[in-house]
C-alpha cells in the first residue's frame, strides 16, 4: 500500500513501513534536494526519492546522487578503529586507538615542538565540522599546520574574487534566476559531467533564446550546443579573456556609467588589453579570429549575462589571474549586482563554499577572517576562550605541507574527509611523504588510498549519519539531516576531534554534546566577518528553503544577490584586472610534445573512494582512459581500445585509448578518479599559483607511446 507525502501540492511516493527523510546529496556543490528512504523496521537506508519542492534542483539528480544512499550501509564501511601492526590493520577499541594517538602526538610535540603535528581537512563536511577542524588544529593541537583539500578545488576562485570584488562568494546571484539570463559565457566548466543538475537552468534559458559561449579544449556536452565553442589550448585562458576585454572596449560594449561609478583601474586595464587583438590572441590560444569576435559580440550585446567558470581555468599556475580577468568581463558589462546576471564559479565539493570560509585554510579564521589581522585574531580567540597570543601563526598550503614533511618539520598528520594520495598532484611525491611521516591518523568511512598509509584509522560517518549545515554553490546555507544512527562503532568527525582534544588536555574548549551547540558557537565566530552567518538559524533554513550569506542578524533577509550597491573593497569599488598573459608552467617540448589535461566523469566524485564502490557507477566507468583526437592517434598508429603509455617529466602510466573528434588534436584528456597505478595525478604538475597556492592540474606536457 502506498501513500503520498504532500507539501505545497507536490506529491511524493511514500511506501508503507518506510520513512522519508528530507536532506541533500552528499556530493558536489549543487547539493541537490532529496528524500532518503529509511526502512523503519531494519533501520537501513533503502533508497531515494526525488525532492520536487527543492527550488534549486526541482527533484533532478545525477547518477551519483541517485545512488549516493548505497554507500551508507555498504559492506566495505570501516566500522571499528584500526591500528597498523606489522603492516596489517588490526581491529582495536576506541580507547586503544585514542591512547596510541595521544601517546604519539604528545611525544612528537615534546620532541619537535607544537608544529610537528598537522591537520589535513576536507570540504565534503558540514560547516560545523569544517569550522571545528580549524579550532581543533589551533586550539586542541596548537599547531599552525592546517589546510584542506579545497586548496586543489576552490582557492584560485577565492583568491580572484577577493582581489576583484573583495569577498569570495562563488555565485553573485541565485541560480533560480538563471533561466532569465540572455547569455552564458562559460569557461573551463564541463557542466554536464561535473554539475549535471545545473543543466536544467541553462536549457530553460536556451528555450527562451539565451545564447551560450563555451571555452573548452574539449567539445563537451554543452559545447556541442553552444553558439560559439572556443576550442582553446589549455593554459591560455588569460589571453583569451583579455581579448574579450579588448573587443568589449574596442567596440563600445562597456557600461561606462557602471564602470566609472563602481570600478577601479579602468584606464590601466584599457592600456593592458590593447595588446590582445584577436589576431595576437588567436596565435596564443589556437582559437580563430572569427570565433573570438563572434563570442565577444554576442556577450557584449546581451542585456543580462553570466560569466561562469570552474576548475578548467582555476587549476592553473595562473588561476587567480584567470579568475580576475573573467570577472572583469562581467564588470565591464555592468552585470554584477543585477537580476539574472553576474559571475559564478562552481564548487566541485559538497561544501566547497562554506568549507573555505571558516578557518580550515592555513591563513584563515572563521567568517573569512585572517590570521594576519590582529583584530581578527583577537575576536576569534575571544570566542574560543584562548589568549590572542596563543593563536598559532599562518601555516602553509595543502601541497606545501608535503614539502614540510619531506624537510622533517611536520612529523604527524591527521587527515579527515580527504584522500590526497589520489587528489594531490605529483602523487608519487605525496606517497613518499606519507611514508616519511612518524605517525599518520586518517578518519574515513572507507579504506582510501591515503588510509592505507595510516598508523591508525578512525571510523568516521557518512553524511546520512550526522546533521549540520552546508553552503551550496549559490551561497545558500542549507540543512543536512541525520537519517540514521552511525554504523558499528563509527563516530562523526566532530566527536573524533572532541575525543582527541580531550586526550590532549584541551577538552574544556570542546564542550559540545550535539551539533546545534557547535552551530551556535560557529554563528558567533562568523559574526561581523565577511562570511557572516550570524542571522542564519536552523529554523530559518527550514522555513525559507535555505538562507544566503551574508546574513548579519536574525531579521536580515539574507543576500541572494551580492554587491547590489557596493563591493567589499576598501573604497567600495571593484578592481578590474590589469594582468598580462603568462604561459603555463610547463609547455610542450620536443620530448613532451603534447598537452595533458585532466577532469571528471559524471559517474565519479573526486578521488572515487565512494563512487568506485557503487555498482552502477563502476559499471558505467570502471577505469580511466585517454581521450585522443583521431588525427593525434594516427601519428602513433593508435586505434580505439589500444593501450597507450603517457609520460610527463614526473612519471608515466598506461591507459586505454578512446578516440573522439570532440577534443583538440594536440590534447590528451584523462579523468582523475582512480588511485595508485591508475592515478593520472602521478603525472600532473605541482606548480603552484603564487596567490592561491593551487596546483596546475589542468595543463602539463606529455609524451605518448603505443604499448
Amino acid at each position: 500500500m502506498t501513500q503520498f507525502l504532500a507539501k505545497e501540492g507536490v506529491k511524493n511516493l511514500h511506501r508503507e513501513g518506510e520513512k522519508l527523510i528530507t536532506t541533500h546529496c552528499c556530493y558536489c556543490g549543487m547539493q541537490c534536494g532529496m528524500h532518503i528512504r529509511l526502512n523503519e523496521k531494519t533501520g537501513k537506508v533503502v533508497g531515494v526519492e526525488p525532492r520536487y519542492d527543492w527550488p534549486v534542483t526541482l527533484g533532478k539528480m545525477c547518477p551519483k546522487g541517485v545512488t549516493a544512499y548505497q554507500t551508507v550501509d555498504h559492506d566495505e564501511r570501516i566500522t571499528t578503529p584500526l591500528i597498523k601492526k606489522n603492516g596489517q590493520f588490526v581491529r582495536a577499541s576506541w580507547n586503544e586507538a585514542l591512547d596510541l594517538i595521544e601517546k604519539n602526538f604528545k611525544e612528537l610535540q615534546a620532541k619537535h615542538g607544537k608544529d610537528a603535528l598537522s591537520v589535513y581537512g576536507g570540504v565534503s563536511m558540514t560547516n560545523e565540522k569544517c569550522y571545528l577542524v580549524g579550532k581543533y588544529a589551533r586550539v586542541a593541537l596548537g599547531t599552525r599546520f592546517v589546510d584542506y583539500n579545497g586548496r586543489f578545488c576552490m582557492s584560485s576562485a577565492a583568491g580572484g574574487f577577493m582581489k576583484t570584488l573583495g569577498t569570495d562568494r562563488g555565485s553573485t546571484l541565485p541560480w533560480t534566476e538563471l533561466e532569465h539570463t540572455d547569455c552564458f559565457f562559460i569557461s573551463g566548466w564541463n557542466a554536464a559531467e561535473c554539475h549535471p543538475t545545473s543543466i536544467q537552468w541553462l536549457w530553460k534559458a536556451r528555450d527562451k533564446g539565451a545564447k551560450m559561449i563555451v571555452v573548452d579544449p574539449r567539445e563537451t556536452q554543452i559545447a556541442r550546443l553552444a553558439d560559439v565553442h572556443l576550442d582553446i589550448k589549455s593554459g591560455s585562458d588569460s589571453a583569451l579573456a583579455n581579448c574579450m576585454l579588448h573587443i568589449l572596449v574596442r567596440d563600445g560594449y562597456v557600461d561606462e556609467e557602471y564602470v566609472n561609478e563602481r570600478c577601479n583601474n579602468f584606464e590601466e586595464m584599457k592600456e593592458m588589453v590593447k595588446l590582445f587583438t584577436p589576431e595576437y590572441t588567436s596565435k596564443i590560444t589556437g582559437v580563430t579570429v572569427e570565433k573570438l569576435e563572434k563570442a565577444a559580440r554576442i556577450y557584449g550585446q546581451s542585456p543580462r549575462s553570466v560569466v561562469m567558470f570552474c576548475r578548467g581555468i582555476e587549476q592553473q599556475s595562473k588561476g587567480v589571474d584567470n579568475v580576475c580577468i573573467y570577472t572583469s568581463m562581467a564588470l565591464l558589462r555592468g552585470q554584477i549586482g543585477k537580476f539574472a546576471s553576474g559571475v559564478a564559479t562552481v564548487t566541485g565539493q559538497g561544501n566547497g563554499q562554506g568549507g573555505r570560509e571558516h578557518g580550515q585554510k592555513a591563513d584563515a579564521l572563521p567568517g573569512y577572517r585572517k590570521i594576519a589581522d590582529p583584530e581578527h585574531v583577537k575576536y576569534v580567540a575571544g570566542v574560543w576562550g584562548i589568549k590572542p597570543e596563543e593563536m598559532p601563526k599562518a601555516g602553509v598550503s595543502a601541497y606545501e605541507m608535503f614539502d614540510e614533511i619531506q624537510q622533517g618539520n611536520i612529523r604527524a598528520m591527521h587527515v579527515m574527509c580527504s584522500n590526497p594520495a589520489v587528489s594531490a598532484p605529483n602523487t608519487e611525491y605525496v606517497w613518499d611523504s606519507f611514508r616519511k611521516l612518524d605517525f599518520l591518523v586518517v578518519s574515513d568511512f572507507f579504506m582510501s588510498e591515503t588510509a592505507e598509509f595510516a598508523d591508525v584509522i578512525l571510523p568516521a560517518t557518512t553524511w546520512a549519519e550526522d546533521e549540520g549545515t552546508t553552503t551550496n554553490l549559490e551561497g545558500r546555507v542549507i540543512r543536512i539531516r541525520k537519517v540514521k544512527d552511525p554504523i558499528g562503532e563509527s563516530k562523526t568527525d566532530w566527536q573524533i576531534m572532541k575525543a582527541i582534544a580531550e586526550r590532549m588536555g584541551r577538552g574544556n574548549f570542546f564542550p559540545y554534546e550535539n551539533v546545534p551547540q557547535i552551530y551556535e558557537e560557529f554563528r558567533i565566530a562568523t559574526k561581523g566577518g565577511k562570511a557572516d552567518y550570524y542571522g542564519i538559524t536552523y529554523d530559518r533554513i527550514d522555513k525559507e528553503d535555505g538562507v544566503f550569506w551574508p546574513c548579519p542578524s536574525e531579521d536580515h533577509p539574507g543576500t541572494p544577490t551580492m554587491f547590489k550597491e557596493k563591493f567589499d573593497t576598501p573604497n567600495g569599488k571593484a578592481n578590474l584586472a590589469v594582468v598580462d598573459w603568462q604561459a603555463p608552467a610547463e609547455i610542450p617540448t620536443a620530448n613532451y610534445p603534447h598537452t595533458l589535461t585532466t577532469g571528471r566523469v559524471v559517474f565519479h566524485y573526486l578521488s572515487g573512494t565512494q563512487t568506485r564502490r557503487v555498482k552502477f557507477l563502476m559499471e558505467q566507468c570502471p577505469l580511466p582512459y585517454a581521450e585522443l583526437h583521431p588525427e593525434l592517434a594516427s601519428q602513433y598508429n593508435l586505434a580505439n581500445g589500444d593501450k597507450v603509455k603517457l609520460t610527463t617529466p614526473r612519471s608515466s602510466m598506461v591507459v586505454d585509448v578512446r578516440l573522439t573528434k570532440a577534443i583538440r588534436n594536440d590534447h590528451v584528456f584523462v579523468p582523475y578518479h582512480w588511485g595508485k597505478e591508475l592515478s593520472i595525478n602521478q603525472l600532473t604538475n605541482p606548480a603552484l599559483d603564487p596567490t592561491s597556492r593551487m596546483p596546475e592540474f589542468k595543463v602539463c606536457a606529455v609524451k605518448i607511446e603505443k604499448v
Partner: protein
Amino acid sequence: MNKIMYLEFERCIGCRSCQAACRECGGHDAKERNYVEYVDFMESRQTFPMLCMQCKDPACARVCPANAIQITPEGVVLSAMEEKCIGCRNCTFGCPFGIPKFDFEENKMYKCDMCYDRTQHGISPMCASVCPSDAIRFIDFDEMQALRRRRTQMNLIEGKKPSEQDKWQYVPEFFGVYSD
C-alpha cells in the same frame, strides 16, 4: 493519466541518471529498463535516451504467443506476467527499439512499465523525475501538443528548415523546439 513521456534528444547530456533511477523503481531489482546511447562517440558527445514507447499496438505484445504482456487502461505496456510467460523471447526480437530484455537467471522478461506504481497516481516516473537536462519529461498531452506546435511555428516564422548539410546550425537557435 492524461500524461505522456516526451523526449528531446538534443537536451540529453549522457549522464545516465535515468538508468540509475530506473534501477530504484519498485520491483526493478536493480536492473534498468531504459538505455542511453552515443549517436557516434567518434564524431560528437551527442547521446540519446532510449525508452519504451508504450506503443498503442505494441509489437512485443502482438508477438507474445502466451498473451503474457498486459496493457493497462492508461495504455502502459507492462512486463510479461510471470505465470504466463513461457520464455520464448519473441518480445525481445519483436520490439523495434530493443526495449524488452530477458533475465536468464530469473527466467523472465522485463521491460519499462513507465513506473506504473508512480504514474497511475500522477507522479513522474523515476527517469523523468531525475533527468537533469529535461531530455525526458512526463508532461500533459496538451503541453506536448503546444511544444510540437511551437516548433512548427518557429520553422514557419523563419521560412526555412534544416537540410542534411546545415542541420547543426539550427540546433542552437531552435534549441528545445527543433526535435521531438
